[in-house]
């Protein structure tokens, strides 16, 4: 039965300025994430208004960081809320997912 091959994990999604992405990934590393993926963002709107990527200084570029990990990791990330928010992320969202090969997502 294939269902048993799946393991419940948390899917953490963070939108943050490209120039601060390192702060977030370093924090994830420190909290024991086994990995993360950074996706480029073309454009976005939020409290700062529209942020259009591609300005020459790069200050208006955002990225989306996706990190899949255990519920315990998600707990640690939320517990480090102060430090995480220091990188000024626009969005920190957590959702449920199920992964193949759970041992890869400590």
């Amino acid at each position, binding site marked *: 039965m294939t269902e048993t091959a799946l393991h419940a994990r948390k899917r953490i999604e963070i939108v943050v*300025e490209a*120039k601060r992405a390192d702060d977030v990934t370093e924090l994830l590393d420190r909290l024991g994430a086994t990995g993360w993926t950074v996706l480029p963002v073309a454009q976005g709107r939020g409290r*700062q*208004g*529209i*942020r*259009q*990527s*591609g*300005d*020459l*200084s*790069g*200050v*208006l570029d955002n990225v989306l960081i996706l990190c899949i990990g255990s519920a315990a990791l998600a707990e640690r990330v939320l517990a480090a809320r102060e430090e995480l928010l*220091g990188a*000024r992320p626009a969005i920190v969202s957590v959702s449920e997912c199920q992964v193949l090969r759970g041992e890869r997502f400590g």
Partner: protein
Amino acid sequence: MTGLATLFPPPILFFALGFGAGAARADLSIPDALAKTLSLYLMVAIGLKGGAALATPGGAEGLWAALAVGLALSFLLPVPAFGLLRLGTGLDRDTAAAVSGHYGSVSVVTFAAASGILATRGVPAEGFMPAVLAAMETPAILSAILLARLGGGAGGPKLQGGKLAREVLLNGPVVLLLGSFLIGWITGPAGKAQLAPFTEALFPGALCLFLLEMGLMAVRQLRVGGGGLSARLILFALAMPLIGGAAGLAGGLLAGLSPGGVALMAVLGGSASYIAVPAAMRLALPLADPGVYVTLSVAVTFPFNILVGIPLWLRMAGT
């Protein structure tokens, strides 16, 4: 026709084309990678040319005075800018400090456009001006940080020393300009001869393409960020280049530069950064609003300098 062509050389016309196309919402866009490539190209070409000029006999004459003037302008111009912003526009302290840093610093493309026009008209200028350009990038960033600190600004998240120092001292444009300048100086006339088809023959064309893109970019940024700007802020972004340009004009005369050099110094004084300083401010003053400083610099002051500032300073300097 020739008269018209002198008043409006090709790069200026391409800027107008980009701006007009953007304003009319034409479906025209330029890949980000091209804009970044052209910006890198201009820095390398300007740096190499300046370094090679310094390596010619007598090329260093007047360098130190010009550098001193440039450093002083960059360090001091943020002060009146900050005063105007705080008294005249009600901008918060951090954003006002960040904006003022942009106006003390300089814009490479504005400089490139002015150099290109001087070259077209056959007006000579001191070859070391690219070094002055590079020297003016950074001091204004320090001023801006000081202005924010005096009186309790720059609060919020604590400064990240290492990252910030890198952005200030090792920001891309400074490293590339100074590095290319050094390489131009080391390799001298031999290097210049070898690289001339790249750095000189292509320069006018690359500048045209880049100004086309800057026109499109200015409108785009005006559209997404312009809503957040008050009339007073826009007035500031039109007045400050006149103040900075006048200071540059005076400084250039003081340093004993040639008319071409005086014109370039005025252009530098009046120009506002939109590559190095935004990046540094984002780290140094994270509470300042990047939408304000990027938009003022790219979308208001840059077009103003291209269309009004450069012709004005070229004429005032007697070129």
